[in-house]
């Protein structure tokens, strides 16, 4: 093997090995939910998610991955994450549709509507607010914020009063009909504490979702925050969301 061949193989080998190593835990099966590894220090992280609206193509794969990963009921009334489609018309009218509630994605693209001037997709999920109203109202402390900034529900403690669902301004919660307790996005806490990405981020083909640690200095999310103009949803409610949107249209609530 000459030097040139060695370098060529090495360029292929090392990334491939790293990828396999990264995928190996996932191949072993699902990690135990809400159990963190012994050497994991929650105080060293502050998780968030960036969403690049321009990159989302509305393929709905994140929604399917989330439902599969987190055992979310298939029925179109329960979502930890979903995709909204916005159509801005010539006359200024905005039409919104949740494409994730459709039974099946259409086989063909819908006929072009000449009055539509702009269309875009917006992925939605729990905003993992730094100042979460759902946590404030829970009468028994079943929903709480972890030290690394993720809002979780303890399904063994939740009494199913649904006050948190009422208090969430983003419609991110639902009552799980199987457990009869409140349920919501966990940022795939069982994965991220193992060093993996949330399922929705993992499967996104266009990297519209960027998961990261706002405490990490060289983190992708920190960079995303630095280079984009960032908006959050309903900032007037002072919930301080940690889901950060880039190129977000003012029509989106």
């Amino acid at each position, binding site marked *: 093997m000459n030097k040139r061949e060695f370098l060529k193989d090495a360029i292929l080998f090392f990334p491939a090995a790293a990828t396999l190593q990264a995928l190996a835990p996932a191949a072993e099966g699902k990690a135990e939910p809400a159990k963190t590894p012994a050497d994991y220090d929650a105080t060293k992280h502050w998780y968030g998610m960036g969403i690049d609206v321009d990159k989302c193509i509305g393929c709905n794969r994140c929604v399917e991955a989330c439902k599969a990963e987190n*055992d*979310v*009921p*298939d*029925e*179109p*009334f*329960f*979502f930890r994450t*979903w995709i*909204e489609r916005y159509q801005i018309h010539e006359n200024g009218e905005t*039409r*919104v*549709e*949740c494409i*994730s*509630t459709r039974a099946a994605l259409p086989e063909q693209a819908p006929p072009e509507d000449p009055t539509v001037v702009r269309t875009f997709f917006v992925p*939605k999920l729990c905003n993992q607010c730094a100042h979460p*109203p759902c*946590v*404030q*109202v*829970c*009468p*028994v*402390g079943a929903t709480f914020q972890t030290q690394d900034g993720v809002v979780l529900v303890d399904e063994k*403690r*939740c*009494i*199913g*009063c*649904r*006050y948190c*669902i*009422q*208090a*969430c*301004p*983003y*419609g*991110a*919660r*639902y*009552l799980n*009909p*199987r*457990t*009869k*307790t409140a349920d919501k996005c966990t940022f795939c806490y069982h994965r991220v504490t193992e060093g993996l990405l949330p399922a929705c981020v993992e499967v996104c083909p266009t990297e519209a979702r960027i998961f990261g640690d706002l405490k990490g200095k060289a983190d992708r999310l920190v960079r995303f925050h630095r280079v984009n103009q960032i908006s959050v949803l309903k900032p007037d*409610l002072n919930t301080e969301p940690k889901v950060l949107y880039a190129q977000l249209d003012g029509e989106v*609530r």
Partner: protein
Amino acid sequence: MSGAIPDSLNEQLSHQLSQVVGFIYPNEVETQWAILIVVYPYLTGIVAGAFILASLVKVFNVVEVQPIYRLALLTALSFMLVAGMPLQLHLGHPERAYEIFFTPQPTSAMAMFGFVYLWYLLGILLIEIWFEYRHQLVLMAQQSRGLLRGIYGALSLYSKDVSPEALAFDHKASKLITIVGIPSAFLLHGYVGFIFGSVKANPWWGSVLMPIVFLMSAIVSGIAMVMFLYILLSLVRNEKLDMRCLDKIGLFLLVAIIVDFTLEALDYIHRLYQSEESIGILTQLVSSKLFLSLVVVQLLLGMLLPLLILVLVRSVRFNEELRKLLYFTTSLLILLGIFSMRWNVVIGGQLYSKSLRGLMAYKMEITGIESLLTALALLALPFIILTVLFRLLPPRWMESHAQAAAS
């Protein structure tokens, strides 16, 4: 994991989904707080209102209303005993309800309500009724035999002292408890209003006026309920009504409705004038989904018509029979109107999307836990409890006892 949810829920949600107008967040299809949570503030409001009417006698010495004092107290107790049930039944995990008392979260309005409820029931209502009835219970225990003697003895907590000093103490104690009871009754229902008013995510609920609107409507409904029961009892027993008492209750009812109307009008005027982001969808909500229950039933039938009748009764000299009929009609209209008000707050707040882009629907189940039948049963239960209480603790027993002793 399809098919994992009950068919009835799937059916209900599919129907509600088909009724959606505009855009809603997908998790909003389900109505989280349904008919039982409408019943809950309705019952609690009657408790607070009836107690406040009773307190007029003790604290403010309004002698005219003395005849309904005990009726008002027993009404408050009957409704109080049922008020917690809809909450309990509505929980996903009713068996964990005790956690509210053992591990309450101090920042939660709902957690603190558990304590307010218990305080009001055990710290105010039961003690007040006990002092009011102690003399009677002692005498009843003396005069009855067997099991009843045991029951009355136990209810009087085996006290026997009916000396003038002891009775004077009863009177003083009951007055003191009423004084503490008034702010407690205010707290009880103001608090229910706060549970809704503090939800900033929902502009239909999130209003600083909500606790005070709830409180005033509670007073209105409590007075109306006692008035209704007073007239009904006189019809059932074929007894003559004390018209001075009834007219006085009518006056308090009129004042309470005027204050309630003013506050609610202020709330709507304020919303319209401030015209915040949510005003478009809320206007759409009121003019479509809530038109019948809010404009027709709550406002016209439940508030303006009773107001008109009560003003007429005070300004025109009607005869007694007609006045009685008008008061009876008024009380029923008000009870219907306040129920409608609770519906419009609780269900109304869940008929529009927090995206402010669409309206949802609510299809009430007929049977099941969260259903019309359960709601009707819970609304009927206080009347059954009241009947039992009337048998056990006859409000007029002392008068008939004194008459019997005299003859």
